[in-house]
């Protein structure tokens, strides 16, 4: 089978190539990328137009990408697919469908399932299920400690062999510094990063939102920013001590960004991610006790948004990940204190990222790198590329398509989003991966 993607704006962050061109896909591999025009000194200029299509005799599938952008499938290194154990929140099937709809062709799922993904059997279950039912590629992240309890190291080597690409106790910090030290040391054997959920839970106490004037005004218990900052600093120090590979998840504070920037300058082996909600909305979204805006770490303030944008711009923050955390409606339709934390993020991440391009924080290629190539490189996935001979995992995006965020239309089971009712611009129209074409054009007139 041959697929032709014709006349699209191609963005290839790996080779820093972008320009108008065509892509030939044969047997779900990229056979050829032809640039019709390109920036000086890049690509091979061609201008044969429609004659290009005519050279394929056996009537290929043609996708007209005129006016659209063609880019590598996005890579989300931080999602919660909830399976096994919490299928009422999300399944591998529904979560990966949400992924392809959001332009992602690879997702990395956190181990906080039931049972926890802390051994190769669970890893194998996830991979088997993902192979059979997943709409996109799934890369499991194994637990750092058994049961994510922070006491004994999980079988990292065996999980690595079974297919885990990183280790994290996400949802919970590795509270014990000695265990974190051992994890950073031991994981060096397998070259997989340890992803830190940086939170001092003693400081968090019973907090449910950012600590400050607003938490006092709403009478909600606050989580000080130091709960994140202290743990980021601890883990950076442990990375220096051990030479281990450290990745900081969901950075939400200015001081956190600064600590990572300093560490990178000092040559410490650390990478970091943030999430769209941390650079788009502030704690104000919690007003009126909106549980859809309850997330951990909590939404912060304008100065944090500014610092995170700066961190993205100067590459202190390497990755934009969603921390896609779907929950059942009953878990949000309740008291704020008891409501589950998390945002269903896969279906809004790209347009929220594109706002950064519109604001001039990042250029388009830089954004796409943070949403595909960089996470792929951190985890050694060989994704995020448009290369002849490579697997066809790509997304075609209509940058001008404006839409209202309507959670009830999400394909994710999690309808929990604080962006409900917001108008966003830019969304995937076709996602190709795993030997399938997901065409969303019909449902979006």
């Amino acid at each position, binding site marked *: 089978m041959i697929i032709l993607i014709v006349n699209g704006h191609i963005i290839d962050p790996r080779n820093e190539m972008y320009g108008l061109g065509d892509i030939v896909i044969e047997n779900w591999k990229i056979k050829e990328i032809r640039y019709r025009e390109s920036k000086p000194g890049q690509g091979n200029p061609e201008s044969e137009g429609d004659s290009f299509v005519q050279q394929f005799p056996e009537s290929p599938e043609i996708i007209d990408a005129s006016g659209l952008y063609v880019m590598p499938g996005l890579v989300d290194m931080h999602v919660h697919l909830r399976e096994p154990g919490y299928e009422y929140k999300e399944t591998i099937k529904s979560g990966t469908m949400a992924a392809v709809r959001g332009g992602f062709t690879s997702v990395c799922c956190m181990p906080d399932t039931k049972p926890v993904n802390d051994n190769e059997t669970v890893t194998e279950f996830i991979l088997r299920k993902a192979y059979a039912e997943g709409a996109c590629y799934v890369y499991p992240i194994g637990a750092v400690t058994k049961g994510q309890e922070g006491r004994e190291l999980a079988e990292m080597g065996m999980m690595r062999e079974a297919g885990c690409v990183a280790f994290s106790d996400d949802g919970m910090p590795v509270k014990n510094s000695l265990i974190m030290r051992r994890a950073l040391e031991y994981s060096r054997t397998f070259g997989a990063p340890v992803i830190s959920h940086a939170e001092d839970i003693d400081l968090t*106490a019973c907090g449910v939102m950012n*600590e*400050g*004037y*607003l*938490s*006092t*005004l*709403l*009478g*909600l*218990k*606050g989580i000080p920013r130091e709960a994140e900052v202290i743990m980021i600093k601890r883990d950076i120090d442990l990375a220096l001590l051990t030479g281990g590979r450290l990745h900081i998840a969901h950075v939400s504070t200015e001081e956190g960004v600064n600590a990572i920037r300093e560490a990178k300058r000092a040559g410490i082996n650390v990478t970091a991610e943030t999430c769209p909600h941390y650079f788009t909305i502030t704690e104000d979204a919690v007003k*009126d*006790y909106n549980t859809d805006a309850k997330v951990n770490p909590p939404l912060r303030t304008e100065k944090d948004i500014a610092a995170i944008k700066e961190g993205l711009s100067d590459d202190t923050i390497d990755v934009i990940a969603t921390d896609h955390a779907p929950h059942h409606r*009953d878990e949000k*339709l*309740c*008291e*704020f*204190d*008891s409501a589950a934390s998390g945002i269903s993020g896969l279906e809004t991440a790209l347009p929220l990222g594109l706002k950064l391009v519109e604001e001039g924080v990042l250029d388009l290629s830089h954004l796409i790198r943070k949403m595909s190539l960089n996470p792929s490189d951190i985890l050694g996935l060989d994704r995020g590329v448009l290369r002849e001979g490579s697997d066809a995992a790509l997304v075609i995006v209509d940058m001008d398509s404006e839409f209202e965020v309507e959670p009830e239309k999400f394909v994710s089971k999690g309808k929990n989003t604080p962006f409900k009712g917001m108008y966003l611009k830019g969304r995937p129209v076709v996602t190709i991966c795993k030997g399938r074409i997901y065409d969303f054009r019909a449902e979006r007139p």
Partner: protein
Amino acid sequence: MSSLGIKDLLGIKGLSRKQIYLVLDTAAGFKDVLKRDIKKVPALRGKTVFNLFFEPSTRTRTSFELAAKRLSTDVINFSVPTSSFVKGESLLDTIRTIESYGVDYIVIRHSSSGVPHFIARHSHASVVNAGDGINEHPTQALLDAFTIKEKKGYFEGLKIAIVGDILHSRVAKSNIYCLRELGAELRIVAPPTFVPHGIDSFGVEVYFDADKGLKDVDVIMMLRIQNERQEGGFLPSSDEYSRFWGLTEERLARASQGAVVMHPGPMNRGVEIMSEVADSTSSVILEQVTNGVAVRMAVLYLLNRTRVTKHV
């Protein structure tokens, strides 16, 4: 004007001086009613008040019950013991059930902030916040203001100190909003562990030193110290709290001549307040209790009663 123009009383936040005065003036009328031999008026006859208490409370619940009965409503008391270990039906299901009874008022107390707001969104009944988490306890603030007005006659420039666990006190929060709106000069007297974040933006002066904080004040509002605060690391011991922040006769003497002492109850005698002070002529603690009924009558009376009775 005989209405507050709002369906629910969720907090003092957002109330205007005019609205607060309307409650106080209306309450004065009801207080006269309470002095009569027959203490009941038919103002809300046929209406139903549902007291929904998710936290143990005797005083507030009784006060609301009495207020509702004095207005000739039918009152139902519903107490739900909440514990994190006992997981009963969801809050939404409880509200829907009550909604189906066709009640006119829901008086709600809950340990979680924002629950009255949640109920107001999901119910046609008028919701009255009887204390939510560490957020607000608006009727307590209104009855405190009523008591101060009776005793002092004015608010503008009146020096008032609130002493104790401000961080966890919904009474303190509502009083801060209320008394600031009325123009009083407010002081917070508390150890730093009990001072909430961002308090500077609330227009109050913070004193860690009780002796300094109580100097020349006209009104002292004491808050109850909960014993479990020691476990959270907020206080070393109640003895230590008592020594540094407890209201003794000596500390009371630092206040202005004729200063009044208030306490929302229940008191920990010997901890935050000494018996000599609680039982002194400066204390208006029992009058607060009396005024609570009149103020709650006023609140129930003044909320918009726009609910259309469902025809079955």
